[in-house]
């Protein structure tokens, strides 16, 4: 688990360099990515399917990014984009392609569907977290006006 955290941290830092994340935010972007990946591996180890694990990991990435964007007063995109990349199902895509090359259509259908569902899970997770935080901030503002 510690190794997974460390590896994911290093690769997210690599992505941050590619996308020109401001220098002061590189470490925190790496932390976001590593935490997302840690959640993913935790769910995989505890026996959940990869789609659910992807959903949970993306939720964590989105929530932590939102917290960081408020703390550092910067756009959430800076943390979400590098942080989400380890979860994008590159491996699934590769195995789907292998199945196509082998002519194994059954395997292709199953791995391909899983890949698409994982990408969908990332999208849904981002959507859910963004909606909930928006709702919470609106409610918070409403509450503040009463006092």
């Amino acid at each position: 688990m510690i190794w997974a955290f460390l590896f994911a941290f290093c690769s997210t830092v690599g992505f941050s360099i590619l996308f020109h994340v401001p220098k002061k935010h590189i470490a925190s972007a790496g932390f976001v990515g590593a935490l997302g990946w840690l959640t993913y591996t935790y769910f995989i180890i505890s026996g959940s399917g990869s789609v659910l694990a992807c959903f949970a990991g993306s939720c964590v990435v989105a929530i932590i990014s939102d917290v960081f964007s408020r703390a550092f007063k910067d756009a959430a995109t800076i943390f979400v984009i590098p942080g989400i990349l380890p979860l994008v199902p590159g491996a699934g895509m590769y195995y789907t392609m292998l199945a196509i090359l082998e002519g194994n259509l059954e395997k292709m259908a199953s791995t391909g569907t899983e890949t698409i569902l994982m990408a969908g899970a990332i999208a849904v997770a981002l959507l859910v977290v963004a909606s909930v935080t928006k709702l919470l901030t609106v409610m918070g503002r409403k509450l503040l006006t009463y006092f």
Partner: protein
Amino acid sequence: MINQMQKKILILALHAGELMMKSGAESYRVEDTITRICKACKIPYVEVFATPTGIFLSLDEGSPDSDMHTFIKRIKGSSIDLDKISRINHFSREFTSTDLSIDAGLSILKEISNSKPYPLLLRILGAALVSSFFALIFQGTFRDFFCAFFAGACSYALSVLLDKIETNLFIRGFCCCAVATLIALGLFSIGLGSNLNSVIIGSIMIFLPGVALTNAVRDTLAGDMVSGSSKGIEAVIIAVSIASGVGVAIKLWTLLGGAF
């Protein structure tokens, strides 16, 4: 007639919007920034429509005899640069909250647009970091680590080269992933590397459409269906290009008699 002052405001706002869109910002953020800049310059009626390929901006002075003006900015090509997004975000906040002059604003924007990404060598190192550590994540050994390091660095250098000669999205993804796969296969066949799959997965990780995917969701959520669906299609095209690049490279390798 439009006066010189308003024209400058327009240039400022459109330039800021264009820079943000090119750097990979979401549509609602671009629209929000442009509206804020125009409102800060006391233009009462502003309407913006931003898509990944163009920005439309209409504004009116508000007096009964004034004309309405509409401007279109076509956006071509894009490269993700989160530093620019962050700096323009700060700039628009500063511009609206303090009485910064328009000329000063323009010069700040020019400075932001001229800012370079990290030096090429560092970026190649970043790409190598991504692919090598991903190889480790996907059960690679330390020998795979070095193979993926090399394959990732080479394929990223190729993608920079292809960007320079302005190839399209599909060709770039296809060529880079094909080369990454061929390098991995080559290194594997001369005895370096023990887990071929982890090396290939690691080196295609750099080109995955994560940015397009996240922005597609965020745009759709904000109600920008046009931007959302076009970003979604971009993500699909990139994914297909990567998969076909890897597939063609492996097929070619086996046809030429290589072991797989």
